[in-house]
C-alpha cells in the first residue's frame, strides 16, 4: 500500500526518537504529552525533508561511516555537528534503496572484495552485534546495483546449491537456510537492474526449491517483475531494510566461507555480507526439525542477543484488601463452616502477597492507578468467586457455553467479555459496536444532566437513582466509527470500552452513558487490535502502520510507540503485570515490549503465518500465540524460547485463553472448533534449566495429540473469542454462519 512507501524512514525515525520519549516518560508517566508530540512529529516531517539534498548527504554519510569504522569518534562528532546531520537521518538514509544507483566504484574490484571478505568474516561474530542497525558503507552505495552478469545468476545459485547438497548431512540442514534469502535477493537484484526475462527464468527454476512456508511471500515476489514495482512494495522493503537473520554453527559457517573463497563466488558472498546477518554459534549444528521450528518469519530468526534482556515476568503483589463488613453479612446468611474457610483463604492470600516474587518487577516500575472503592469491592467479589472456582485438569474439563451471534451477516469482527462475564461486546463490520448484558440486569444509561440536578445527592441509593430506567434494555449500540471495528476491549472496572477500527482511530466509550468519550488518533491506518491493561488506565493498540502504541486514557496522544515489526501489528496483549506488551504481526513474529522504555525485549520466531491471537498464562511466565497456519506455539518468556507446538486446528486461530489457574489452554478457530490443551503438561515437560546453559536450541517433542484434551465442534460458527469465567466456565463466542 502507498502508506509504506516511506516506510524505512518512518520506522527508523521512530526508533531513534524513542530514547527521547523515554527519558521523559520514566520520570513522569502522566506528564509526557510533550514526548507524545515529539514522537509523532517525525512521521510526517521526515519524508519531506529527506529528498532534496540527498546526494550530498550520501557522501557525508559514507564518510561518517568510514570514520566510525576506524573508531575516530571525535571526528565523527565534529563532522556531524558541522553537517547538521541527525543520528536518525544517518540511519534512515543508509538503508534507503533510492541511493542505490550511485554505487559505482564498488562492483567490479575483486581484490578489494576479497580482502573485505576476510576482514569482515573474521570480525563478524564480534563486530556484527555492535553495529547491528548500521549497515556497512559499501552496502549503502551498492544496494542492488549491477554486480554480476545476469545470465550467470543461475550458475551462481546452482553452484551453491550443488555445494550445499554435497556437504555432510549435519551441515546441509543449516546451510540450506541460505537458499531462501539468497534466492529472494538475487531475484530482486535482477529485477532491480531491469533483467526481466532473466529474473523470470531464475524464479521459475529455483522457486520450487524453497520451503513450503515461504509460499505466500513467493506469490508476492513472482508478481514483481519491474523496477518500478519495487517501490512501495512492502515485502520488498522488508528485505531491504532488515537483514535476514540466520543461526549457523561455526563449523558450517567455516565450510561455507571456505567454499565461497575457493570458488571466488563474490556474487553470493556480497549478498551474504550485505543482506544477511549470520549469527554464529559454537556447538553442534542444528537438525532440520530444529531449524524448521524456529524459521518462517519474514526476516529469519531473532538474533540471540535480542532475547538476552531480563524480563520481569512475575506478578505484582496483590494489594491487601480487608474483607470486613462483607464477611459478616455472609456469616448471617450462611452456615458456620463458610466464613471460617474464607478467613483462612484471606490469610493465605495475605501471606502469599508478602513474599515478593523474584521475577516480578518493582511494584512502582510502571505507575499504576490507585484502587477506587468500587475496584476494591470488585476485588472482593473476585476473591469470593475464586473460592468457588472449579479446579480444572485433564480429568476435569470445563463446561463450555457458546454465545452465538445470530443475524450478524458475516459482520462480526471482534468480541470481548468483561472479566466478571457480565457484559459482552461485539465489534461489527458495519462500524457499530454493540454491548449486551449477559446477566438479567439490563443496561441503563445515566440520566441527563438536567434530570441529575433534581436528584438528592445525599440519598443512599443515589447510584441507583442516577440511572434512567426508561433506557433499560438488553443491548446498546454504539455508533461513531466510520469503518469496520476490528478490536474491542473492556476496561477492568467495566466503566469503559475500547474499540479500534479501520478508520484509524481507537475510541473510548463510556458504559454509563453509552457515548463516545475520546477518539484516539495516531495510527492513521487501520487499527487491528486494542487491549486494556489489566489495571486499567493504559491500553495498547496496533495496526497497519506496523507499530503498536501505548496510550493512557487521559492522554490524547500515545505515551510509547513500539516500532520494529516489519509488517502490520495484528494483535496486542498486555502482560498480567502490566509492565510488558506482546504484539503479534503479519511478519510472523511475536515481540514483547517493555512498557517502561519501549524496548523490544523478545522476538519470537517460528510461526509460518500471520499471528492473530495471543494469550499470557495467568502466572505471567508463558505466552501462547496462534496464527493462520492453525498452530499454537507456546513460549517461555523468561528464556525467550519456544517450548511447545500445538498442532490440530485446520484454520486460523482467532482466540486463545488460559483457564484461571493456567492448567488448560483453550483455542478457538475458524475451523469451527474449540480445542482444549493440557498446558500444565506442556509447561512441565520442558526443563527450563536445560536450555539456559546451552545455545537455546531445544528439541520440541511432537506431542500435540497427547496434549489435546478435547475438541468441541460448533455448528458452522467460527470461534471468535474465548473467555474463562471466574469460576472457570468456558465461554465461547462467534457468529453463526449460515452458508
Amino acid at each position: 500500500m502507498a502508506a509504506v512507501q516511506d516506510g524505512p524512514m518512518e520506522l527508523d525515525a521512530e526508533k531513534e526518537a524513542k530514547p527521547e520519549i523515554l527519558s521523559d516518560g520514566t520520570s513522569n508517566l502522566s506528564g509526557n504529552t510533550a514526548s507524545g508530540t515529539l514522537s509523532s512529529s517525525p512521521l510526517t516531517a521526515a519524508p519531506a525533508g529527506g529528498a532534496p539534498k540527498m546526494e550530498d548527504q550520501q557522501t557525508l554519510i559514507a564518510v561518517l561511516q568510514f570514520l566510525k569504522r576506524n573508531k575516530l569518534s571525535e571526528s565523527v562528532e565534529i563532522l556531524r555537528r558541522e553537517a547538521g546531520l541527525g543520528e536518525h537521518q544517518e540511519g534512515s538514509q543508509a538503508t534507503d534503496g533510492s541511493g542505490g544507483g550511485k554505487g559505482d566504484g564498488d562492483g567490479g574490484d575483486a581484490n578489494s572484495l576479497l580482502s573485505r571478505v576476510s576482514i569482515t568474516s573474521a570480525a563478524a561474530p564480534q563486530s556484527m552485534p555492535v553495529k547491528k542497525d548500521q549497515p556497512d558503507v559499501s552496502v549503502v552505495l551498492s544496494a542492488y546495483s549491477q554486480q554480476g552478469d545476469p545470465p550467470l545468476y543461475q550458475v551462481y545459485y546452482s553452484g551453491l546449491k550443488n555445494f550445499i547438497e554435497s556437504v555432510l548431512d549435519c551441515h546441509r540442514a543449516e546451510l540450506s537456510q541460505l537458499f531462501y534469502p539468497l534466492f529472494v535477493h538475487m531475484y530482486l537484484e535482477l529485477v532491480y537492474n531491469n533483467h526481466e526475462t532473466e529474473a523470470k527464468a531464475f524464479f521459475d527454476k529455483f522457486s520450487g526449491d524453497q520451503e513450503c512456508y515461504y509460499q505466500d511471500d513467493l506469490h508476492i515476489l513472482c508478481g514483481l517483475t519491474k523496477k518500478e514495482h519495487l517501490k512501495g512494495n512492502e515485502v520488498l522493503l522488508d528485505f531491504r531494510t532488515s537483514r535476514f537473520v540466520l543461526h549457523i554453527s561455526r563449523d558450517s559457517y567455516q565450510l561455507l566461507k571456505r567454499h565461497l573463497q575457493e570458488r571466488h563466488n563474490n556474487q553470493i558472498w556480497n549478498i551474504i555480507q550485505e543482506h544477511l546477518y549470520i549469527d554464529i554459534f559454537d556447538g553442534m549444528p542444528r537438525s532440520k526439525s530444529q531449524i524448521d521450528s524456529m524459521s518462517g518469519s519474514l526476516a529469519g530468526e531473532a538474533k540471540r542477543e535480542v532475547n538476552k534482556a531480563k524480563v520481569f515476568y512475575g506478578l505484582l503483589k496483590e494489594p491487601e484488601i480487608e474483607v470486613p463488613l462483607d464477611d459478616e453479612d455472609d456469616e448471617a446468611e450462611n452456615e458456620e463452616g463458610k466464613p471460617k474457610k474464607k478467613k483462612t483463604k484471606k490469610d493465605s492470600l495475605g501471606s502469599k502477597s508478602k513474599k515478593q516474587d523474584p521475577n516480578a518487577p518493582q511494584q512502582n516500575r510502571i505507575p499504576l492507578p490507585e484502587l477506587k472503592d468500587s475496584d476494591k469491592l470488585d476485588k472482593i467479589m473476585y476473591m469470593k468467586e475464586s473460592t468457588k472456582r472449579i479446579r480444572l485438569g485433564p480429568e476435569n474439563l470445563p463446561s463450555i457455553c457458546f454465545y452465538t451471534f445470530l443475524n450478524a451477516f458475516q459482520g462480526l469482527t471482534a468480541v470481548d467479555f468483561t472479566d466478571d462475564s457480565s457484559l459482552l461486546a461485539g465489534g461489527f463490520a458495519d462500524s457499530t459496536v454493540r454491548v449486551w448484558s449477559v446477566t438479567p440486569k439490563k443496561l441503563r444509561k445515566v440520566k441527563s444532566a438536567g434530570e441529575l440536578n433534581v436528584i438528592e445527592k445525599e440519598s443512599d441509593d443515589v447510584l441507583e437513582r442516577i440511572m434512567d430506567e426508561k433506557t433499560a434494555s438488553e443491548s446498546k449500540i454504539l455508533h461513531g466509527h466510520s469503518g469496520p471495528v476490528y478490536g474491542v476491549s473492556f476496561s477492568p472496572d467495566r466503566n469503559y470500552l475500547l474499540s479500534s477500527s479501520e478508520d484509524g482511530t481507537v475510541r473510548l466509550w463510556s458504559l454509563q452513558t453509552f457515548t463516545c468519550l475520546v477518539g484516539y488518533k495516531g495510527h492513521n491506518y487501520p487499527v487491528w487490535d486494542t487491549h486494556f491493561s489489566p489495571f486499567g488506565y493504559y491500553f495498547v493498540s496496533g495496526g497497519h502502520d506496523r507499530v503498536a502504541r501505548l496510550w493512557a486514557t487521559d492522554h490524547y496522544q500515545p505515551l510509547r510507540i513500539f516500532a520494529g515489526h516489519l509488517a502490520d501489528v495484528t494483535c496486542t496483549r498486555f502482560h498480567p503485570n502490566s509492565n510488558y506488551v506482546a504484539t503479534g504481526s503479519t511478519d510472523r513474529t511475536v515481540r514483547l515490549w517493555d512498557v517502561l522504555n519501549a524496548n523490544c525485549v523478545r522476538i519470537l520466531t517460528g510461526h509460518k503465518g500471520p499471528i492473530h491471537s495471543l494469550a499470557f498464562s495467568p502466572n505471567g511466565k508463558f505466552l501462547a500465540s496462534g496464527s493462520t497456519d492453525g498452530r499454537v506455539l507456546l513460549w517461555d518468556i523468561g528464556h525467550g524460547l519456544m517450548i511447545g507446538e500445538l498442532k490440530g486446528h485446520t484454520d486460523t486461530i482467532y482466540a486463545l485463553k488460559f483457564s484461571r489457574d493456567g492448567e488448560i489452554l483453550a483455542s478457538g478457530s475458524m475451523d469451527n472448533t474449540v480445542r482444549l490443551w493440557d498446558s500444565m503438561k506442556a509447561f512441565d515437560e520442558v526443563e527450563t534449566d536445560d536450555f539456559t546453559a546451552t545455545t537455546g536450541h531445544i528439541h520440541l517433542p511432537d506431542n500435540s495429540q497427547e496434549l489435546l484434551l478435547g475438541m468441541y465442534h460448533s455448528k458452522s460458527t467460527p470461534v471468535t473469542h474465548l473467555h474463562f469465567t471466574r469460576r472457570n466456565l468456558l465461554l465461547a463466542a462467534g457468529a453463526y454462519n449460515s452458508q
Partner: protein
Amino acid sequence: VRSSMTEREERRFAEVPRESIKLMAESTGVELSEEVATLLAEDVCYRLREATQNSSQFMRHAKRRKLSVEDFNRALRWSNTETVCGYGAQDALPFRPLKEGELFFVEDREINLVELALATNIPKGCAETMVRVHVSYLDGKGNLEPQGTVPTAVQSLSEDLLKYYQQITRAILGEDPHLMKVALLDLQSNSKIAALLPYFVYVISGVKSVSHDLDQLNRLLHMVKSLVQNPYLYLGSYVRSLVSSVMYCILEPLAASINPLNDHWTLRDYAALLLSHIFWTHGDLVSGLYHQILLSLQKVLSDPVRPLCSHYGAVVGLHALGWKAVERVLYPHLPAYWANLQAVLDDYSVSNAQVKADGHKVYGAILVAVERLLKMKALSLTLAAEGGCAGLPGTATGAVGFRENSLGLSPPPEPLSEPPLGIASHLQAGGAGCPWEEWTPVSLPAMYCELYSFFGDSLAVRFSTGPPLGGATPPGPCQPLEGRKEPASSAPNLENTRKMPQLTASMNISPRRDGSPRMEPQPPSLAATVPGRSLARSSSSSSSVSRSRSSSSRPGRSTSQSRDIFPKARFPLPQAGPPAFSFIIGGRQMGRRCQGRRFQTSFTPTPPHTTLPPRAYAHKLPVIGRVSKPVRRWTCSHYSLHLPL
C-alpha cells in the same frame, strides 16, 4: 479482479491484455501506441495483484473466509486509488459466456435507481443481530455422544408448525387422556410434520429424565408408536434414536420400579412390542440395527449385576424380536442364567420376597419365550416338511401375538422361516467375534429336552395350552382346545429332581392321546435324557444343594414337602375346566389385601390358538408329552402357586 487471486496454483496471474487497454483508452478518446499499451497493461496487472493481496488482510481481520468487494475497495482506498462503486453485492455476480463468439463477461444488470428509491414494497428490516447462549458441552464431555439427535442448528420453523408442536407435546404429556388420544391420532396421520420430527425425537429422548414416572414413560412410548405408524414420516437415522429410547424403557432399571406397586412390567412389555414393531417396519433404515439390539439385549442378560427387571426386559425384548432371536440368544444362554435365577427363587427368606417375586416374572417371561420358540420351531419344521404349505402366510402372521390387542398395534408379521430383512444375514454381517457366530442350530428334540429339564411340567402345560386369558379375572372363559392336550402333570415324578417350585396352572387335560410323532423324538430317547440331565444338574449345582440344606434346617422345609406349600387353589373351580391358569404369588402386600399379588400379564401371551390350525398343531406337538405318565389324578385340577413367605 478476483481471478487474479484464484490462480495461485500455477503461479501465473490473470492478465489484462494489451487490446483491452487500447479499447478502454479509445473509449475515453485517447489513442495509445502499442508500446505504451503493453507497458500500461503490465502495470495494471501488477497494481491489481497488489490491491488484491492487500485486500486479503481486510478479509482476515474481518474473520471471514470470503473476500468481498468491500475488502477490495478498502485496499484501494488505502492506496489512494479511487474505489470501484456499485459492486457492493453480497453474492458474486455471475460470470457468463456469450453464445456467439468467445466472450465472457460479468453479468451486471442495470438497476433503475428511481424505481428502487420510490419503491413502496420496502423489504422488512433484516432481523436484529442478537446473541443466544447455550451450554454446548458439559464438563467437556458433551461430544462423546454423536450429535444429531438434538437439532442444534438454528432451524426456521414456521409459526404454525411451532404452535402445532407445542400443542401436541402439551396434549400428549398433559393430564387429559382424551386430548392425548386425539393428539396421538393426529401424530399418527398428519402428513405435514416432517420438519418437526427431530423435535419429537428429542422430546422422546427425554425418557431418561422421567424414569420415575411410569405415566410419562407410557405417554412417550405412545408418541413413539404414533410416529412409527405415521406413513408420511421418513424416520431415517432417527430410528436409532427412537430405538435407543425404547430400549431404555425395556432394559433400564427404571426409578419407577423401586416401588413394587408400580407396574413397570407392563411398560416393558409394551416397549418390547414397540421395539419389534419398529424393527419389523423400519429396521431397514439403519443397517445392523437388529444386530446391535441383539447384542445389547444379550449384554444385559449376561450381566448378573443387573436387576431382575432388566433381565425381564431383555427376555421380553428377545421374545418380541421373534423366536429366532430367542433361539440364538436366550436359549444358549439359558443354562448359565438358570443357576442365578434358581438361586433367587430358592431363597425363601423374607427379605428376598420382592426379589423373588421379580424372579418369578423373569421365569414366566422365559417360559413364554421358550414355549413359543418350541412351537414356532416345530411349526417351521412341519412347514418345511410339507413344502410350501398354502396356509403359510396366514399362519405366520398370526404366530406372534403378544398382548397386541391391548395395545392396538397391529401385530408385527413374523414369518416362520426367515424375516424379510434376513435375520441370518444380519447375524452374518455382524462380523467375526460376535458371540453367536458359532451358533449351530439345535434340533428340536434336543432343545425340548433341555428346556424340559429346566421347566419340567410347566413347559409341557404351556406348550399344549393354547388360548390366552381373556380378561382380568383369572379363570375367564376360554375356548376349549380341540387338539389333544398332553398331560403335563408328571410333576410328582420329577419332583425330586426339580429344584424349581412350579408355577402352576389350571388345565384341562384330555386323556385322549394319539398322533405319534412324525419327526419328533421318540419317547424312549426322551426318557433317557431327562433323568440324566436332571442328575447332572442336581449334582453340578452344589450351590443349590447347599441352599436346600440350609432351607431344610428350617422345620417343615424340604423338597419333598414343597408340594404342600402349594396348596390347592383357593379359587373356585372354573366351570367346564377351560384351560386357564393364573399365578398368584403371595408377597408382602398380601398382608394388606387378602389376595396375593397377581401378575398374570406376562404369562398370558400364548399365541392364540385360532391362528394355528389345530390340526397341524395337534399332529406335531402331542409327541412332546410324556405319554406314559400317570395323569389322571390331576385332571381338571386348578392349582395356584402360593409362595410361602
